[in-house]
């Protein structure tokens, strides 16, 4: 057939994503050995997203990332949204993967409330994906954080499975050892908004999780547990009863009521909070039973409901938001553009002050049922990693909330310093290369398998992630021990010869140095 065109491979800039960038360089180097012409194109995420999401037939391969959010502790979101054919046209399945067999498994696991059975379905899904290689899974990175152990009692640090030590649990439980009672955390990114109805930047969620309570929270073990709800109970596979914790108050002193809870879920689907809407669309209705009890009726059975809805929707005070939402209904803007001067939640921390692009100060809510031991939680915006490390050592910050640099540097620094503790945790999230299945040759599973096999993941782990990652062949992280199918990773064979063999078997030919399509297949996408 024709020679295969030059493959465009997208990555974000090195400055923003050094590991991704390095991985792509390595991969490109390996692929070239197969006889492919690879062109690495570097662009900021926003530009990349524009093409990948909205010009779905215009790209070949892109490096991509799924970040580890607590609600992703349930495999449903990843398994279904990313690969179900129904989301191929508009939704998250931007790679255009379509496999009826997989669709069936993905649909089945959603509604299966029996955990053991569901586990089998999730395993099956992982196996299908491993065989099809719609994505080239690279690694589950390890999130590496550090804190000053002379300031915070090491025992009081909570390492949340798949998330790491920078989590709400830690911030609530950190126990000061001396006079410094403020948790000072860094972030490289600016805070975009502090808004319970808007899913904005990643950093923003650190703040909202502390300010707002949810009915449930994903616990340190990765499983949801009751939070603002004293308890919840499945009445049947479409009904769940929730009992609100007694004595909770909003930061302005007013009591938290079941009305507020119902309002919070209604607000999300009101059309004023498009980002949150998907997390509550399955709710058909909420009945208030008494002043502590509510019943949620679902449209469809949903195994992940507690994790992705109860543990996701922020509880907001009706007396604050009702007039706001009323007002917004008449306007072009929605609630996502609305920024309260002083956000009012019921969470373990209260909002104090926000200095644009510099810091956010929260103070401990001593009235909370799980009141923090620290006095304040201060987020500092430090775009320069080097400076963040310097600040940690000088005490300007005492908790590394984000470290985009080389983790080894952090470990070395901790060693040199003696006052620092560094903790690495395998992430729920993962890095991968997405193949555009809409376009030849990526519509050929064999070709994808070959490309995937061409790169030994250990190389990526070692060279790009400096060892701070776990090689992966599954979208379900080993951090989610219960769901993770270790076999698909173990059975994955990689190496140039493996790749070449697959290609050969599939009929691809090497003419000169250049890989050609099998048979008389024509190149359709050459520019």
């Amino acid at each position, binding site marked *: 057939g024709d020679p295969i065109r030059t493959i465009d491979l997208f990555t974000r800039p090195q400055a*923003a994503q*050094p590991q991704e960038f390095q991985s792509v*360089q390595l991969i490109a180097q390996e692929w070239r050995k197969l006889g492919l012409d690879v062109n690495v194109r*570097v662009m*900021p995420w926003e530009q990349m997203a524009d093409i990948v999401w909205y010009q779905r037939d215009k790209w070949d391969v892109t490096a991509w990332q799924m970040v580890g959010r607590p609600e992703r502790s349930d495999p449903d979101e990843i398994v279904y949204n990313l690969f179900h054919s129904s989301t191929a046209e508009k939704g998250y399945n931007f790679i255009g993967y379509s496999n009826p067999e997989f669709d069936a498994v993905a649909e089945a696991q959603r509604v299966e409330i029996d955990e053991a059975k569901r586990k089998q379905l999730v395993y099956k899904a992982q196996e299908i994906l491993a065989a099809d290689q719609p994505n080239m899974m690279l690694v589950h990175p390890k999130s590496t954080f550090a804190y000053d152990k002379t300031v915070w009692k090491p025992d009081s640090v909570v390492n949340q499975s798949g998330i790491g030590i920078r989590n709400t649990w830690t911030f609530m439980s950190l126990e000061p050892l001396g006079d410094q009672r403020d948790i000072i955390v860094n972030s490289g990114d600016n805070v975009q908004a502090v808004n319970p109805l808007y899913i904005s930047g990643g950093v923003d969620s650190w703040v909202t999780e502390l300010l707002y309570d949810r009915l449930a929270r994903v616990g340190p073990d990765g499983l949801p547990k009751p939070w603002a709800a004293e308890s919840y109970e499945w009445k049947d596979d479409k009904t769940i009863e929730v009992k609100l914790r007694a004595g909770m108050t909003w930061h302005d002193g007013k009591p938290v009521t079941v009305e507020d809870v119902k309002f919070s879920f209604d607000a999300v689907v009101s059309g004023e909070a498009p980002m949150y809407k998907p997390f509550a669309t399955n709710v058909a209705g909420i009945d208030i039973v008494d002043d502590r009890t509510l019943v949620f009726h679902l449209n469809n059975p949903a195994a992940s409901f507690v994790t992705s809805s109860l543990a996701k929707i922020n509880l907001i005070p009706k007396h604050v938001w009702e007039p706001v939402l009323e007002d917004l209904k008449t306007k072009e803007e929605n609630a996502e553009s609305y920024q309260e001067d002083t956000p009012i939640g019921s969470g373990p921390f209260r909002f104090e002050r926000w200095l644009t692009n510099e810091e956010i100060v929260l103070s401990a809510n001593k009235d909370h049922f799980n009141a923090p031991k620290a006095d304040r939680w201060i987020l500092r915006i430090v775009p320069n990693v080097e400076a963040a490390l310097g600040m940690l050592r000088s005490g300007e910050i005492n908790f590394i909330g984000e470290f985009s*640099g*080389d983790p080894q540097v952090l470990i*070395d620094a901790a060693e040199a310093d003696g006052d620092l503790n560094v903790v690495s945790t395998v992430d729920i999230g993962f890095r991968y290369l997405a193949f555009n299945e809409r376009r030849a040759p990526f519509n050929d599973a064999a070709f994808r398998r070959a490309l995937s096999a061409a790169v030994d993941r250990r190389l990526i782990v070692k060279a790009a992630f400096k060892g701070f990652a776990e090689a992966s062949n599954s979208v379900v992280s080993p951090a989610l021990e219960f769901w993770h199918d270790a076999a698909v990773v173990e059975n994955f064979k990689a190496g140039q010869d493996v790749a070449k063999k697959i290609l050969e078997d599939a009929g691809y030919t090497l003419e000169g140095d250049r890989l050609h399509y099998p048979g008389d297949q024509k190149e359709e996408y050459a520019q």
Partner: protein
Amino acid sequence: MSETVIARPALVSRLFGALRLPINDPFAVAGLVIYAVFVLTAIFADQIAPYDPTEILYTEEFDLAADLRPGEQGFVLGTTSLGRDIFSQIVHGSRSALLIGVTAAFMVALIGSIVGLVSGYFGGWIDALLMRLADIAFGIPFLPFVIVLAAFLEPSIWNVVFAMALVLWRDTGRVIRSQVLTLRSRGYVEAARVAGSSNLKIITRHIAPNILPLSFLYGSIAIGWAILTEASISFLGFGDPSQISWGYMLQDAFASQALAKQAYYWFVPPGICIILVVSAGFFITRGYENILFPKLGR
């Protein structure tokens, strides 16, 4: 042709004469020498550099050859965190520097000179138009402009050149225009008009040679600007990683925390190269400092 009986001095020395290069000044000579060294390095980069600057290298044990100190495993200046040879990058960086520097200088000098010549010589509405354009160009903050361009276009070292060509002719243009204004009323220019010379002839024969040193001067300042700008753009992450430049190297070093790793061998050499090349330009122009700092300091 009886006019050409006497031998003319060689073209090169005539050009140097025309540019009034201050070759007596020791600094200027130092500057020229630095330029010469870098130009040679750039030309013979492939021969000098032991590796491809973007190639990911492995050690003898087939580990990634990352973060090696100078001398280790035979890497003269060590390797980067991504396993590239620093020395080869430095050598190849001179190419980008030269390419960016020289083209930017050329564009700035060329466009600025043409604008200045046309505006100053013809005056009237042409002048008014061009000077209004210059005002607008003066209103455009340069670095932000480059950043925006770099974000819009594919990352490439040419963005800097392009932006400089779009914006930075203004300085050269204005200064040359005012120079042309005084030249235009010089007796010999007037004399050429009385003698029936065409505008083109007057501009090329009588005026342009006089502003050549100024163009050259602004050109050499532009070299510095271009290299520094490219470095800043790279630092901010809008650079082109496939084209190794010193600015990119610095960015790479800082992003990879060379500072914390105390990898001085990594971030010092490109810094020094930039400083050397940029100051070489300044050293040369120092000879012209009166032209360099006319009454308004831009």
